[in-house]
Structures are given as C-alpha cells and as structure tokens.
C-alpha cells in the first residue's frame, strides 16, 4: 500500500509499504477513507518529540471501513463505516474501566521506554512516535487498529464523513478541554489557539453554557473562522495586550476558565519568545510554554486552567506563585475519546457543535509534504488538510 512516512525533520514522503496484518486477536484492519493532519503532528515533524524513526507512518485522526477483524473482535464487521479514536485503550485495565482511556496501562508496547521519562506508561497513540507505542499511523491506505471493539465506533448514517473524521481526535480533545476547564453556565472562557482543537473547545464551551468565549491567536484568518463558525470574540495577541484586554472583557476579574490549545511550540511576542526559542534550541527546555504562562496569569482567582495543547517534557518559568496564591486549578491530558464519541455524535446531529468547516483542504497522500507545510505555515487559509488515500 501507499503510506505517508516520516523520514526526518520536515521530510515526509509517500512510500510503498506492506499492507498491515492482524497481529493480535482484538485487531481490525481499516481501509482509510479520510485522515486529517493534526497540530500535534507538527511537533513530530518539526523534531520536538523524541523517539521518531525514519520510515514511521504518521497520522492519527481518521475514519474508514472495516475490511478484516481478528477472532477476538465482537462488535465490528466487514463493511462497517467507522471513526477510530486516536488514543488506544485496552478496555480492561483500571484506567479504561474508569473511562480515562488515554491513561491505559496496556496499550503501549513501549511502556517501559515511556516509564523512563513519565514514570508510568500512558496509552499508545496511532502514528505518534515510539514513546507512544510506535503504532503505524493513518496517513495510509490501510491501518491496523488494536483493541478495535473499544476504539472504533460505527458512524451514524446521518453524519457525513467530513464531520465524522474530526470525532477521531479534534472534537473530543476540544470537548475534554472544556470539560476539564469546568465550564459552567454564564462563565467567560478564554481559549488560546484557534486551530481545530481550539475551535472545538470554543464550540463545546458554548455547549456547556459559557456566556462568552474569547479566542486568542495571531493568525487573522483563524480568528475570523473562530468568530464566524464558532461564535467567539477574538483577540490577536500581536496587536494587543492580551492580559489587559481579558481584564477589560471580564470587568477586571479575569476569565473563569482558560484553555491552552497550543502547547509546546507556542509563539509569543518580544523578548519572551526569543528567550523560549533560544532555550529550546539549546535543549535547555524541551517545550515553549508562553501560552501556559499567560493562561495562568490571565485566569481569575479560583479559576481553572485546562491544558490540551501537547507538551512533551520540561518547561521553564512557570509562574508558580500566581498559581498557588490565586488558588487555581490546572488540569491536562490527552483526550479520553472512547468516553465521548457517542455523545459527540449526538451533539453534532443536533448541530450544537459542527466541525465540518475545519476541512478546508481535501488532498491526496502524494502532496503530504506540501500539505503539512501549508498547515504549519498557516497559508491558503488552511484549517485542516485531510488526506483521501484512495483519491
């Protein structure tokens, strides 16, 4: 089959690789019909996540059709149209039983490697470095899905592919961002990052009753999308003082909930950005935490900061005094998609959330490198490029 492989920093190529096979009883093979780029892929492509190996197939946000099932698969059959959650959960360990699927004890074959860095292993993720299991990703014609009964969900007939593909990762991550931020009716919510996840966080915050959501980014077209499709008020941090504006917008109290949907490659302005860039280049910090810092500073006393932007290692200059003295709550995590998918289908069907506008660029695998460049450089008003491997 054809697959988009990572060969080195910013070097993606389509390679001919063997078709995936059933390796374990609970596996299924899915013929991929759509596979989206995701902001977290950029950390891999740009070389900020360790343990990538040349030849790795990337991609983790996808839908497809079941073509083969292992003997242990009960709920799926050939021909089923499914969305697959990007995080893999065994369904049986304590964490899966508690519906915190991304913390699964058993789905990461390289758990021991991860223990060395994170102390405890977390779940495997498709196409997301060997630290997260080394599973082959979805930017390919076919993909093997372990523990398929738990991770693959049949897509209701009245939900289009263009909406369903984002239920794999972007929508549940946005939902969990709002859930962890403890959004309550009447709250004012600030969301840093107006990419796919940020947009979904805005929509989900409104779904939970937020009175007002403010999106913060530096890319004007993304802010325009946030205003138009997700109903947010917008702030371009390059043109304005974010902390002042947020105070202004909240009667001087600060937002109740602050969501970091940016993560480890955050940009900011002036000396702070130069400082972070330099430290990251010198490997003195692995992650640039400009957004996390600002969220902690902006958040109202007693408020909640929710982190879904991806961090890999160590950050620098976290304002701990503010966190402690303002009595904040900080929560973070990879999303527990398996817990949310059926409910998200329902929200989409009722048009309370709608991810369809994210799909700005349907493309073939062959233009993979260019598609990611466009996505990375925020050109052509790209929100998400989505690969259709069979077109």
């Amino acid at each position, binding site marked *: *089959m054809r*697959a988009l*492989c990572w*060969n080195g920093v910013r070097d993606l*190529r389509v*390679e001919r*690789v*063997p*078709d*995936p*096979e059933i*390796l*374990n*009883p*609970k596996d299924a093979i899915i013929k991929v019909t759509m596979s989206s780029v995701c902001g977290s892929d950029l950390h891999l492509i740009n070389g900020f996540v360790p343990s990538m*190996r*040349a*030849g*790795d*197939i990337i991609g983790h946000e996808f839908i497809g059709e079941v073509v083969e099932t292992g003997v*242990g698969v009960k709920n799926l059959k050939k021909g089923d149209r499914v969305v697959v959650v990007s995080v*893999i959960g*065994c*369904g*049986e*360990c*304590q964490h899966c*039983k508690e519906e915190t699927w991304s913390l699964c*004890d*058993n*789905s*990461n*074959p390289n*758990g*021991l490697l991860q223990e060395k860095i994170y102390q405890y*292993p977390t779940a*495997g993720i498709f196409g997301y470095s060997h630290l997260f*299991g*080394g*599973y*082959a990703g979805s930017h*390919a014609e076919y993909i*093997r899905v*372990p*523990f398929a009964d738990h991770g693959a969900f049949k897509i209701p007939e009245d939900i289009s592919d263009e909406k369903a593909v984002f239920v794999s990762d972007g929508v549940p991550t946005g939902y969990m961002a709002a859930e962890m931020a403890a959004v309550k009716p009447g709250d004012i919510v600030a969301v840093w990052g107006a990419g796919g996840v940020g947009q979904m966080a805005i929509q989900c915050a409104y779904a939970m009753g937020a009175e007002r959501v403010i999106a913060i980014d530096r890319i004007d077209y993304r802010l325009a999308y946030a205003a138009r499709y997700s109903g947010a008020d917008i702030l371009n941090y390059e043109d304005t003082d974010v902390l002042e504006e947020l105070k202004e917008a909240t009667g001087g109290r600060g937002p109740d909930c602050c969501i970091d949907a940016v993560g480890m490659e955050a940009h900011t302005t002036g000396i702070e950005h130069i400082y972070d860039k330099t430290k990251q280049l010198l490997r003195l910090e692995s992650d640039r935490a400009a957004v996390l810092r600002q969220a902690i500073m902006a958040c109202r006393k007693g408020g909640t900061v929710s982190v879904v932007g991806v961090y890999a290692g160590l950050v620098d200059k976290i304002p701990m005094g503010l966190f402690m003295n303002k009595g904040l709550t900080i929560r973070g995590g990879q999303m527990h998609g398996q817990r949310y998918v059926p409910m998200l289908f329902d929200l989409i069907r009722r048009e309370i959330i709608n991810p369809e506008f994210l799909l700005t660029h349907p493309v073939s695998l062959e233009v993979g490198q260019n598609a990611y460049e466009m996505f990375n450089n925020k050109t052509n008003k790209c929100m998400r490029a989505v690969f259709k491997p069979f077109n």
Partner: protein
Amino acid sequence: MKTEQVTHSGKHQRKWKKEFNNVNMAERLLSLAAGGILLAKHYKHPLASPLKVLTGAFLVYRGISGNCPLYTGLDKNSNETNAINTRVIFTVNKPREEVYKYWRQLENLPFFMSHLQRVEQKNDTTSEWIAKIPGGVGTIKWNAEIVKEIPNELIGWQSVENSTIDNAGKVEFYDAPRGQGTVLKVIFSYHPPAGALGEGVAKLFNPLFKTLLKEDIRAFKQVIEAGEVATTKGQASGRK
C-alpha cells in the same frame, strides 16, 4: 595462636592473589591482541609514537599478567560477580484468586516471559525450566522447586542445587486498595556464574535482566487484564 596466624597470612595471600588477578579471561585476551597490534605497528620506530608503544606494552602486560593497575586504582575486578536482585511491584485489575491461580500454573509463565521457552511441572513442587539464550544461540535448562506456598498469598521458589542457573524468588499477592485488583510484589535474585562457565548464561541474564523482568511483568499484566500483549512487531513501515 600460631595456627590462626598462618591461616591469616594464607587468607591474606589468597586475597592478594585475588586482587592482583583483577581482569577476566575475555578481557585479557582482548588486551593481548590489541597491545600486540599496537606494538607490531610501531616497534620499528618506537620514538615516533611513544604513547602508542607504551599503551601497547601496557596492554600486553595486562593480558599476560591478568592484572590491571587502573582497575586496582578503581577497586574494580572483572572476575567477580554479584547477585542481581530485582524487585518489581505492580497492580493487576483482577481478583487475587484469579491472578494467583494463573501464576501458580507455572506452564503459563512462557506466555508472558519472553525468554522462557517452556516450563514443565514435574510434580507438585518441582518443575523444569527451559529458556532461550538471546541471539538464538541455544537453550538452557534448570530445575526449580517451590519452597514456600500460601495459597492466594505467596509463592517462593529456588533452583535446585547444582543448577546451571542459580536463582531464587518470590511473589506476594495482596488485595489492592478499594478492591481494585491485586498488588503483586515480585522479588527475584540471581547469582551469575563466575569465570568462563556459561558465557551464554551471563549474556542471558546480566545487563538485560532487569529490563527483561520488567517487560515480562508488563506482559503478564496485559495477558491477564486485556487478554493479549500489545505489539507492533510485524507491522508495516517505510523502513528499508
């Protein structure tokens, strides 16, 4: 008094000899070869590269005598081996009886202990173990005995006398808090043979041992909880 002194000095002599011979045979041969090559290359013009000649001479001395002054300085002795003790604690999300029963059925162990080929229970307490030597060099066999057993609580075993593999260990089973499964405490102790005996045995157990045991424990948890061991072995990639 006299006898004691003699014993003392004899002990001292043996100790001195042991300390003097602080390089094992494999290292001695390597030293000899490397030193020989260096000397052969530079013996015609020793003053052109004195450092290399000196190094060559040092290596040859080390090879022939079995003594390395650097090791003496570092208090190192590559002839000695220490027991390797490994302790792993983990929780399995299944009832204690079930976990105990699975472990006590020793024939199950090769399902998750990747280096084990087969365990055969000879009678209630004695069993024969066959392990693969990493690298596919062959297999190795030993007998073990269950020396202590409290159903649903503890299994302790020991290799029988004169086994090629000298090991002992125990597993304790506890209820996890809030009824969330079973806590297992595994203690494994292994004494690798000294000297040339069982080069393959040492290869099997020494540096990789702890990692292997941890991997095996992870696999045990996966088998008993999820019914299969997560893997990517055999999956497609663009690696040539």
